[in-house]
């Protein structure tokens, strides 16, 4: 009963000082809106990265030829990854597909059209490992790899750049001086930041190594997919064991290769995204703090202005806690109302603000968090003024003009 009356009184005194109430709330509105928008933006970035990582295939392990833990000088002496290494991976139980990968960036030509893209030499299983689909034509097969066939499967973006609206199937493209027949076009995956999986040319690794890379033996990486029912870590350990033996590393030697699995990448993306979100959120949180100080300031003014009212209330029997509660309710009401408006503004802002190619994603927990922080700020910054009000001497308060 008293609670509702107190809220009613607080609302009325806010209505009587509309401009002041709005200015006080403005700090909270901006603060909460900023927190919501920033958290949403961070979240959007994170889910974008995670989406990209998971679209690059499921349950994958990638082996790189250098160990980033080793000093750069020693990396030069590292044994390269070879086709033999890739083959050895097939012996690990649980490994479903293995593809050696060599890459280069070269201009690709068709007639007078030319585009620069990623050339990937790989096994036929590469598109399974990385979850690509072929939209027209077909993927090259193991015979093509064996025969070093001059065939290529191109990304949809590459197809558009070279062929426009024409069907690329059966046409011959030129890379360096070599000619390759287009036998398939991939389904678009969508561009993800710095890497565009839709703008690349896939060909058998044997073809790429002999015709484009000067009979190179070093692989850029080895990609493999593990059966979904199998744990990634033991497979990764086994791969490390095999490679150490193949590279004649003795105990105490650092690995001269680097194995990363998708879970680690996801975890890393999660960590980076989380840190990013935290950073944005805490920067925005500072404006909340400023909003809170604004509330405290106004509540102190209010308490002084209403000294006589406090005296009257005390004279007719209000206890300390009644006065304390009244002013706390008022400050929480101001901050919560500001917070509510801030949530609306923040959600709208997060919806409309698009940063590069990702937009904000608001989640319910952010709204709950923002509102609880608003309430907490109301209590925290309202407590001191409220305590001051509660501690007033009734006689002096009644005498106050």
């Amino acid at each position, binding site marked *: 009963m008293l609670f509702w009356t107190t809220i009613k009184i607080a609302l009325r005194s806010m209505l009587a000082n509309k401009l002041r109430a709005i200015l006080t709330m403005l700090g909270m509105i901006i603060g909460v809106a900023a927190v919501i928008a920033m958290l949403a933006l961070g979240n959007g970035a994170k889910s974008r990265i995670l989406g990209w990582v998971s679209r690059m295939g499921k349950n994958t392990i990638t082996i790189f030829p250098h160990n980033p833990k080793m000093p750069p000088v020693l990396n030069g002496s590292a044994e390269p990854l070879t086709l033999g290494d890739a083959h050895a991976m097939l012996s690990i139980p649980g490994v479903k597909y293995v593809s050696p990968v060599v890459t280069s960036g070269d201009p690709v030509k068709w007639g007078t059209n030319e585009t620069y893209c990623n050339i990937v030499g790989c096994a036929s299983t590469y598109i399974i490992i990385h979850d690509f689909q072929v939209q027209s034509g077909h993927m090259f097969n193991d015979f093509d790899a064996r025969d070093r066939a001059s065939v290529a499967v191109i990304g949809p973006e590459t197809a558009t750049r070279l062929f426009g609206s024409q069907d690329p199937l059966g046409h011959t493209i030129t890379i360096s001086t070599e000619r390759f027949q287009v036998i398939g076009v991939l389904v678009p995956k969508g561009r993800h930041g710095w890497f565009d999986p839709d703008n690349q040319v896939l060909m058998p690794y044997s073809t790429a190594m002999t015709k484009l890379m000067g009979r190179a033996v070093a692989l850029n990486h080895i990609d493999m997919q593990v059966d979904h029912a199998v744990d990634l870590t033991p497979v990764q350990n086994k791969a490390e064991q095999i490679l150490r033996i193949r590279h004649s590393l003795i105990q105490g030697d650092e690995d001269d290769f680097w194995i990363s699995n998708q879970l680690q990448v996801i975890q890393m993306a999660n960590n980076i995204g989380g840190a990013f979100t935290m950073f944005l959120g805490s920067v925005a949180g500072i404006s909340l703090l400023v909003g809170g100080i604004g509330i405290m300031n106004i509540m102190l003014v209010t308490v002084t202005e209403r000294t006589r009212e406090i005296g009257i*209330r005390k004279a007719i029997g209000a206890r300390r806690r009644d006065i304390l509660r009244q002013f706390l309710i008022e400050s929480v009401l101001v901050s919560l109302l500001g917070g509510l408006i801030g949530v609306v503004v923040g959600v709208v802002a997060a919806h409309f603000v698009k940063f590069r190619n990702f937009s904000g994603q608001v989640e319910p927990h952010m709204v709950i968090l923002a509102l609880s922080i608003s309430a907490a700020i109301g209590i925290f910054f309202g407590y001191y003024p409220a305590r001051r009000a509660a501690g007033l001497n009734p006689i002096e308060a009644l005498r106050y003009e």
Partner: protein
Amino acid sequence: MVELKNKSALLEIRGMVKRYMLGETEVLALNEVDLSIEEGDMVAITGPSGSGKSTLMNILGCLDDFDAGTYIISGEDVSKLTGDKLADIRNRLIGFVFQNFNLLPRLSALENVELPLLYSAHKDAKAAARKALEAVGLADRMHHEPTQLSGGQRQRVAIARAIVTNPAIILADEPTGNLDSRVGREILDVFHKINDQGRTIVIVTHDSNVARHCRREVQIRDGQIVDIIEHNRAARELMAQAV
């Protein structure tokens, strides 16, 4: 001192001492004051400013503590009480009426009268507040805010707020001080009316006309009671007619 308590007294003060520090000098605001007020009485406390009557009023109203002596109101010894305990006594046993009305702005007359009951978690505050407002003749102004009421009406609301908790005593501090004499008379009539219903009233005033309306007049000088004058009813009524 408790054994000195007069059994029929509603309010009993014995050996009351209150000192103030005014800069470096000590001021004895109340010096060994004894006073007892019986149920149903209507007492004026008079004296020039600085006599200690405001101090006495604050202590009677449980707004202030004192340095020595005892104060028993309605059988409860409040001498040693402080803070929230005094607030509770004020809420239950005392009804205040002030010179400048002291109503809360932005609250209707009804809500103002309800307020003391809300602090004691009364069950049906609204009905009690209505009854109190009817008793002071403001049944038709319940939903007006103080700014929409005349001075006399505001003081009636204040009286309604004072009586709504059914307190042991009504304490009025210069209740007619801000009103013209005609309206002041009306307010005194309201006090008479509620006194006739058995309520105990203490009016602090420097106005001797107001004091003559009371049954007794306690005169204070320099922190001590110097005289207690009985105004008999016949004289009061005669005077009432004359004015």
